[in-house]
C-alpha cells in the first residue's frame, strides 16, 4: 500500500486550490494604494553612445510624474555581480560597471535608457514615445570569436578587451591531458553550440516599490526565487538601505527556472523611485520586454575531444568553450560556465584526466546567466554527444561503451575537483533499458520505414551537482555569498506547527512536500504543519530556491530545527511523566517512557510549553520554537539515463518525438508525484531546447526571436507522454534526508538524447552525419540530409 502521510506519500498539493480557483496572489495581482506606474524606454540599438536625451515634451505629457535617466543614478551603486572567477593566470575576471539606467552608452537591445513614472501605465507609455534620444550608433559585437579578435569593438571602453576571463581547469592537469591525447589509440572530436535560450517562466517579471515615510521602511514586491538575496544585494550594493529598513516580498511566483534568481535593475529602480516620489511605483514586464530584459541562458560554443585506448577505455577529455556573458555580468553569470560546468565534465565516467578551458566573452546582447540546469546541461550535452560519436566511429554499441566506462565505486573523486558520494549508473541504465523496450526497436524502425520515415534511438547519461553548496568551498571559488539555508519551526500551544523557510516555492510544491517531512518525524498528520515562505519580514535569512537545493539544503535546515524541537519536547515530556529524558521515545505523535505504558500526547507537551504550570522552568525556557541554519558538507549528485526515440520525415526534415524515457536516481524521495512532475517539466524544456527554441541575434545585435510569434515554445502537441522511473535510489550520504534534488535533471538529461536519436535516424537513412546543432528545426535537418 502506498503511504498516505509523511515521507513517500503523494498527497494532493494544497497550493492547487488557490491556483485552480483564481485566488492566487501573484505580484501583478497586488495593487498598493496610490501606486504609480513605470515604463522603461529601452534601447532598440545594440550599441550606441547616448549623446543627448530631451525630456521636455515627454515631461509635459498628461499624467507624467517624473522621468528618470542615468543622471538620476549617479552616486547610486550599480547592479552587483555575486561571483568572481579567477582566470588561468591567477587574475580576477574583468568586471564592468552595470548602472541601473544607462549612463553614456547603451550596450544591448533592451538596455534601459529612461524610466517614465506616470499616473497610469498608458500615460507612461505614451510619454516614453515623446522622449527624444540622440543615439550615435556604434558597431555591435555579437559573435564571440569576433568579439575576441584584435581590434574588435569593445563593449566596455574601460576594459582591456571583451574577454571577461580565460579559465583553465584543472590548469596543472593540462600537460598530462595533452600527453594522454598524444598516446591515445583513438580520438573523437566534436564542435557544437549550446543554443541561447530564454527561460520564459509564464509569469513575466513584476516589481512594486513602496516606501513608508513614517517608518522609513522600503518594501519591494518582486517575482523572485530568493527574496533575502535580493534584499541583501539591492540594499547593500545598490541603494544603501540596511536590511532592517528593507522588506522584500516574493508572493506566489509563476515559475522561475533561474531567471528570477538575479537582482535586476527594475527592482532597484522601483524601490529607489518609490522613496524619491513618496509613493508606490509598479512595473509589469510585457512578454516582449521579458525577451530583451530577462537574463538569457546557455549560449556556449564548444570543441570537445575524447581520447580512448585500444580497449575503448576513456583516457582523457579536453574541452574548449566560449561562453557568452552578454553586455553585463548578471548576478551569478561567471559561475555558470566555470564551477557549475567544468566540475561536471567527468560525467558518469572514470576518465582519469580532464582539462576544461572556458573563455567568457562580453557581447552586445542581453546578459546571460543560469537557466534550469545552469552549466550542467552544457557539460552533459557536449560529453554525451562526443561519447555517442566515439561509439559510432568505433562501431561499438553506445550503451555498452558507456557501461564500460561507468564509475562503479563510491565515493569517487573526479579529476575535476568534486567527490561523488553515491550513485548506481548501471542501475539507472538497467531501469532505462527495461522502460525503453530496446528489443522492440528494430520492429518499430521497420514500421516507420514502411511509412517513409526514418526512426532513431538515442541514449545518454547525466550527472549533476545539486544542493549548492558548502559555503566555505564556494567562497574559495569566488562566491560572494554563503549558500546555507534556514528554517524556523514554531510549534503552537495546541500542537500545530508553522515552518518559516528561506527556500522559496514557485511551482515546486513546498507547501505540500515540506510538511510531509515533519509529519514523518513527529508522527502527526501533515495538515498540522503550515509552510511560510517568500517574505523577508517573517522568514529567517535564507538563500532561496535554485540548483535543485530546496529539499537537500532547505529541507535539511527544517529537519535540524525540528530535531531541536523534539529534543526540547522530550525534556518537557520527561518532566510531565517524571521519567528520565533518555528514556523518552516519540512515536506516532506521542511521547512514551521506554518499557512502560506511560505516555503523553504531542499536544499535551506543546500545551505545557506555553502554559508552563507544571514545567521544569529551572532547566528550560517556556515556548517551543527553534531555528536552524544548515550548511551542506558537499554537493549532491543525482544521476540518470535517458532515452529518446524520434521519427524524421525525410521530405520535410521534421522531427517528432515518438517516445521519451527517463530513469533517475534522486536518492530518497519525499513526494513521488511532485518528483515525477519536476522530471516531466524538465524534459519538456529539454525537448524545447533540442527541437524548437533559439534566441537568435542578427549581426547588428537585433534579437530576431523576441516574442512568442518567433521564439518557438514547446506546445502540448510537440511532446509525448513521458516514461519516468526513480526506482534506483542511492541516498545522499551527507544530508539528513538522504535526498539529492530533482528540479533540473529533466532539462539536463534530455537534449543529448534527442540529438543522439536524430543523428541515429539520419544515419539509418544513409546520411553520413555526426552532428546537427540545436534546435534541430526542419530546415536544419533537411539541409543536413541534402547537404
Amino acid at each position, binding site marked *: 500500500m502506498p503511504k498516505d502521510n509523511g515521507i513517500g506519500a*503523494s498527497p*494532493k*498539493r494544497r*497550493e*492547487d*486550490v*488557490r*491556483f*485552480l*480557483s*483564481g*485566488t*492566487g496572489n*501573484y505580484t*501583478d*495581482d497586488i*495593487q498598493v494604494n496610490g501606486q504609480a506606474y513605470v515604463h522603461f524606454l529601452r534601447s532598440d540599438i545594440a550599441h550606441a553612445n547616448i549623446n543627448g536625451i530631451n525630456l521636455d515634451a515627454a515631461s509635459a505629457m498628461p499624467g507624467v510624474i517624473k522621468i528618470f535617466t542615468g543622471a538620476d543614478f549617479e552616486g547610486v551603486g550599480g547592479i552587483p555581480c555575486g561571483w568572481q572567477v579567477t582566470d588561468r593566470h591567477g587574475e580576477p575576471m574583468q568586471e564592468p560597471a552595470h548602472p541601473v539606467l544607462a549612463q553614456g552608452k547603451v550596450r544591448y537591445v533592451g538596455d534601459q535608457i529612461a524610466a517614465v513614472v506616470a499616473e497610469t501605465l*498608458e500615460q507612461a507609455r505614451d510619454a516614453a514615445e515623446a522622449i527624444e534620444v540622440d543615439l550615435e550608433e556604434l558597431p555591435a559585437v555579437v559573435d564571440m570569436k569576433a568579439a575576441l579578435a584584435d581590434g574588435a569593438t569593445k563593449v566596455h571602453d574601460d576594459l582591456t578587451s571583451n574577454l571577461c576571463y580565460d579559465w583553465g581547469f584543472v590548469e596543472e592537469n593540462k600537460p598530462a591531458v595533452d600527453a594522454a591525447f598524444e598516446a591515445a589509440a583513438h580520438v573523437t572530436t566534436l564542435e557544437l553550440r549550446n543554443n541561447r535560450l530564454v527561460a*520564459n*517562466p*509564464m*509569469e*513575466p517579471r513584476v516589481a512594486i516599490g513602496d516606501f513608508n515615510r513614517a517608518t522609513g521602511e522600503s518594501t519591494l514586491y518582486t517575482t523572485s526565487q530568493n527574496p533575502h538575496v535580493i534584499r541583501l544585494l539591492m540594499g547593500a550594493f545598490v541603494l544603501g538601505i540596511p536590511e532592517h529598513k528593507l522588506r522584500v516580498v516574493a508572493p*506566489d*511566483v*509563476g*515559475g522561475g*527556472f533561474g531567471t528570477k534568481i538575479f537582482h535586476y535593475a527594475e527592482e532597484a529602480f522601483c524601490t529607489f523611485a518609490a522613496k524619491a516620489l513618496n509613493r508606490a511605483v509598479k512595473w509589469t514586464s*510585457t*512578454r*516582449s520586454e521579458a525577451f530583451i530584459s530577462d537574463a538569457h541562458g546557455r549560449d556556449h560554443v564548444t570543441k570537445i575531444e575524447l581520447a580512448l585506448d585500444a580497449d575503448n577505455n576513456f583516457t582523457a577529455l579536453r574541452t574548449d568553450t566560449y561562453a557568452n556573458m552578454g553586455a553585463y555580468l548578471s548576478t551569478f553569470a561567471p559561475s555558470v560556465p566555470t564551477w557549475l560546468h567544468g566540475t561536471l565534465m567527468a560525467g558518469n565516467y572514470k576518465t582519469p584526466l580532464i582539462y576544461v578551458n572556458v573563455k567568457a566573452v562580453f557581447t552586445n546582447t542581453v546578459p546571460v546567466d543560469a537557466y534550469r540546469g545552469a552549466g550542467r546541461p552544457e557539460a552533459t550535452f557536449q560529453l554525451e554527444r562526443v561519447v555517442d560519436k566515439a561509439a559510432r566511429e568505433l562501431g561499438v554499441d553506445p550503451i555498452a561503451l558507456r557501461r564500460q566506462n561507468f564509475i562503479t565505486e563510491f565515493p569517487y573523486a573526479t579529476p575535476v575537483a568534486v567527490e561523488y558520494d553515491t550513485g548506481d549508473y548501471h542501475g539507472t541504465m538497467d531501469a532505462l533499458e527495461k522502460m525503453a523496450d530496446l528489443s522492440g526497436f528494430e520492429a518499430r524502425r521497420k514500421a516507420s520505414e514502411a511509412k517513409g520515415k526514418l526512426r532513431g534511438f538515442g541514449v545518454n547519461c547525466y550527472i549533476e551537482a545539486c544542493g549548492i553548496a558548502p559555503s566555505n568551498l564556494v567562497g574559495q571559488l569566488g562566491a560572494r555569498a554563503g549558500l546555507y539555508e534556514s528554517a524556523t519551526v514554531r510549534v503552537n500551544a495546541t500542537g500545530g506547527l508553522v515552518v518559516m523557510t528561506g527556500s522559496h516555492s*514557485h*511551482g*515546486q*510544491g513546498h507547501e505540500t512536500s515540506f510538511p510531509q517531512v515533519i509529519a514523518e518525524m513527529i508522527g502527526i498528520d501533515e495538515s498540522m504543519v503550515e509552510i511560510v515562505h517568500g517574505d523577508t519580514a517573517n522568514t529567517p535569512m535564507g538563500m532561496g530556491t535554485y540548483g535543485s537545493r530546496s529539499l537537500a539544503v532547505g529541507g535539511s535546515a527544517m529537519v535540524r530545527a525540528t530535531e531541536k524541537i523534539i529534543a526540547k519536547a522530550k525534556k518537557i515530556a520527561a518532566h510531565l511523566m517524571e521519567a528520565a529524558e533518555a528514556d523518552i521515545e516519540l512515536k506516532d505523535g506521542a511521547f512514551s517512557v521506554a518499557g512502560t505504558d506511560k505516555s503523553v500526547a504531542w499536544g499535551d507537551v506543546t500545551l505545557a510549553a506555553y502554559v508552563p504550570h507544571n514545567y521544569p522552568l529551572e532547566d528550560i525556557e517556556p515556548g517551543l520554537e527553534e531555528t536552524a541554519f544548515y550548511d551542506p558538507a558537499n554537493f549532491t549528485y543525482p544521476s540518470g539515463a535517458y532515452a529518446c526515440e524520434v521519427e524524421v520525415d525525410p521530405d520535410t526534415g521534421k522531427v517528432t518525438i515518438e517516445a521519451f524515457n527517463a530513469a533517475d536516481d534522486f536518492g530518497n524521495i519525499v513526494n*513521488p*508525484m511532485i518528483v*515525477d*512532475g519536476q522530471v*516531466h*517539466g*524538465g*524534459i*519538456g*524544456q529539454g*525537448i524545447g531546447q533540442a527541437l524548437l527554441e533559439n534566441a537568435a541575434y542578427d549581426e547588428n545585435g537585433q534579437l530576431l526571436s523576441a*516574442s*512568442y*510569434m518567433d521564439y518557438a*515554445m*514547446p*506546445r*502540448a*502537441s510537440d*511532446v509525448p*507522454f*513521458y*516514461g*519516468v522511473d526513480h526506482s534506483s535510489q542511492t541516498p545522499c550520504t551527507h544530508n539528513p534526508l538522504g535526498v539529492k534534488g530533482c528540479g533540473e535533471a*529533466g532539462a539536463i538529461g534530455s537534449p543529448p538524447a534527442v540529438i543522439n536519436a536524430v543523428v541515429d535516424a539520419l544515419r539509418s537513412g544513409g546520411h553520413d552525419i555526426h552532428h546537427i546543432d540545436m534546435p534541430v528545426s526542419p530546415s536544419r535537418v533537411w539541409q543536413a540530409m541534402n547537404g
Partner: protein
Amino acid sequence: MSQVTMTVNGKEMSGDAEGRTLLSQFLRETLGLTGTHVGCDTSQCGACVVHVDGVAVKACTMLAMEAEGTSVDTIEGQAAPDGTLNALQQAFQDHHGLQCGFCTPGMIMSAADLLKNNPQPTEAEVRHHLEGNICRCTGYHNIVKAILAASGQDVSSIAAE
C-alpha cells in the same frame, strides 16, 4: 473613458474603460478579478482565456468595449459557491496538472471549452486543442492526463503521475 457593463460569473458588473482597454486588463484591474492572467502580448500563451457568451476567447484579443452586454465566465466562477472545485479543476489537482499555477486558469477555461464540444477527446485532440495554451512547468504530461481523466476516460495506463 466610457462605462462598460457585462455579466461576469453571473453578476452584472460595470467599470470605466478607454477605447484601448483590453478585456483582460478590464477584468484584472477594473473589476479586480486577477485570476485571469496575462503571460504575453502577442495572444500566444493563453493564460487569459475566458468564456464570452459561452465561447472560449483569449481576453487579450478583445477590447473591453467589445464585451459590452456579454456574459463573461472567468476562472473565479468555475468552482461551486462554497469553493468546491468542479470536476475539471479537481482532475487537475488529482493528477498534478499544475505547478506554478500561472497558466492554469487559461488551461482550465480552454479545456472546459474542449470538453463542452468534445466530451471524449483523444490524446491527440487534447494536445491539438491546447495549441494556444503554453505551460512551462509540466511538460504537458499531467495536463493532458488530467483533461482525459476529467472526460471520464481511464488514464491508469498512462505512465506515472
